[in-house]
């Protein structure tokens, strides 16, 4: 799967599952500041990723994930 395809799937998840406005979801968007995803929300996001991409994500892998782009790259590396 190409990076842009992963991004599209991530964007759809954010919009459809979490109710985030589509235009806010860019590669540069910061999860907490721009998308209002707090620590509880991150757990939800991870669960949604795991279901959508049929992968498992360890908590340690999330340490450096602060933007949509970083999440997309993490997912891309695991597929």
């Amino acid at each position, binding site marked *: 799967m190409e990076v842009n395809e992963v991004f599209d799937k991530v964007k759809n998840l954010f919009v459809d599952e*979490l*109710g*985030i406005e589509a235009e806010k979801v860019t590669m540069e968007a910061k999860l907490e500041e721009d998308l*209002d995803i707090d620590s*509880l929300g991150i*757990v*939800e996001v991870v*669960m949604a990723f795991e279901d959508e991409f049929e992968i498992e994500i360890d908590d340690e892998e999330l340490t450096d994930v602060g933007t949509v782009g970083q999440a997309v790259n993490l997912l891309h590396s695991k597929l």
Partner: protein
Amino acid sequence: MSKRRVVITGLGTINPIANNVSDTWNGLINGQSGIGSITSFDTSDLPVSFAGEVKNFDANEYMGKQQARKLDKSSQLSIFATEEALKDANLNTEERLGPNVGIVFGTGIGGIGSTEQAVRTFDERGASRINPLAITQLMPNSSTGQVAIKYGIEGPSLTITTACAASANAVGEAKNMIQNGIVDMVIAGGTESGTTAMTIGAFAQIRALSTNNENPKEACKPFDKDRDGFVMGEGSTVLVMESEESAINRGAEIYGYVAGYGATTDAFHITAPAEGGKGAVVAMRKAIADAGLTIDEVDYINAHGTSTPANDKNETAAIKTVFGERAYEIDISSTKSMTGHLLGGGGAFEAMVSVLTLKNGVIPPTINLNNPDEECDLKYTPNNAIKKELSTAMSNSFGFGGHNGVLVFKKN
């Protein structure tokens, strides 16, 4: 030193009759029932298929999907009702209310719908798939916390879970907080959204609910000989309460006074009222005394009047014990005949009804009261509202657990 007087300066509500105060009041005085067949889930396996559901409320549309999905419905309704109450009190909902404002909310079963959903997910998909928001949705103090966050309420907060007396206790405790000078303003209210398949099933198991599935609007008939149980309702009602001085200083319009509060416990049985409503009697007497009134000065009683055989008989007996011969002269009504039983949200709703009754000089009726019961022989305002100038009102709320919360209101 005389005690500070406590006033109500804002009201907000969402309930089975309507989604604002003015439509709710018009519905009540026109005898409009908010009860109907349940639309939010499949009732085919249940012995009871009707309730008082909130209508025309789309949380995604109201607060945005990102916020709505974080909150249990009981909290969504709390925020909706608080918004109306704060605006009604002429408070700025864009500014934080700060540390001189407290919040006291009552609820019977909190985020029970979210609890059920989390259990289902756990059973079907295991622990790793439980919604990480589940705890924050299901905890009974969730509404209190969410409303406090939204409006920046930084003073003391309490969540009261005395079942169907919860938000009467909330209004009473809020009154005491203000009267004792702890804060100048308290956002007091109640919420419940317990109309789920499991709770309907469970309440039906203890034979607490009416089973009149054929005629939902006529099912709740407080004090009627043919009453056969209560009807579940959902909703939230919020009161802005403050010291009279605070209201005058900021030029707020005053609905009326929360003048008296009495709270007792039956300490008898977990569901049944004590014989003759013994605990209720003491709570009424305490509330009347706290308001500085005598039994001759209570003009109207908004009864607990659930439409269960036991409550209505015992409440009637308790009123007679408190008021003696005068019991037969006092105007009484049970607005639960129209809303159903809002459980932990009932006390705040009926506090609102009580002050509006005084302010507007109209007593809302007890609908569906057609066949008098010899054990319920007081003036229950059957079926039609009555125009009458009144000075004082009392509101009774009694909950499973044996909790009794009674409030007394004054017009001036």
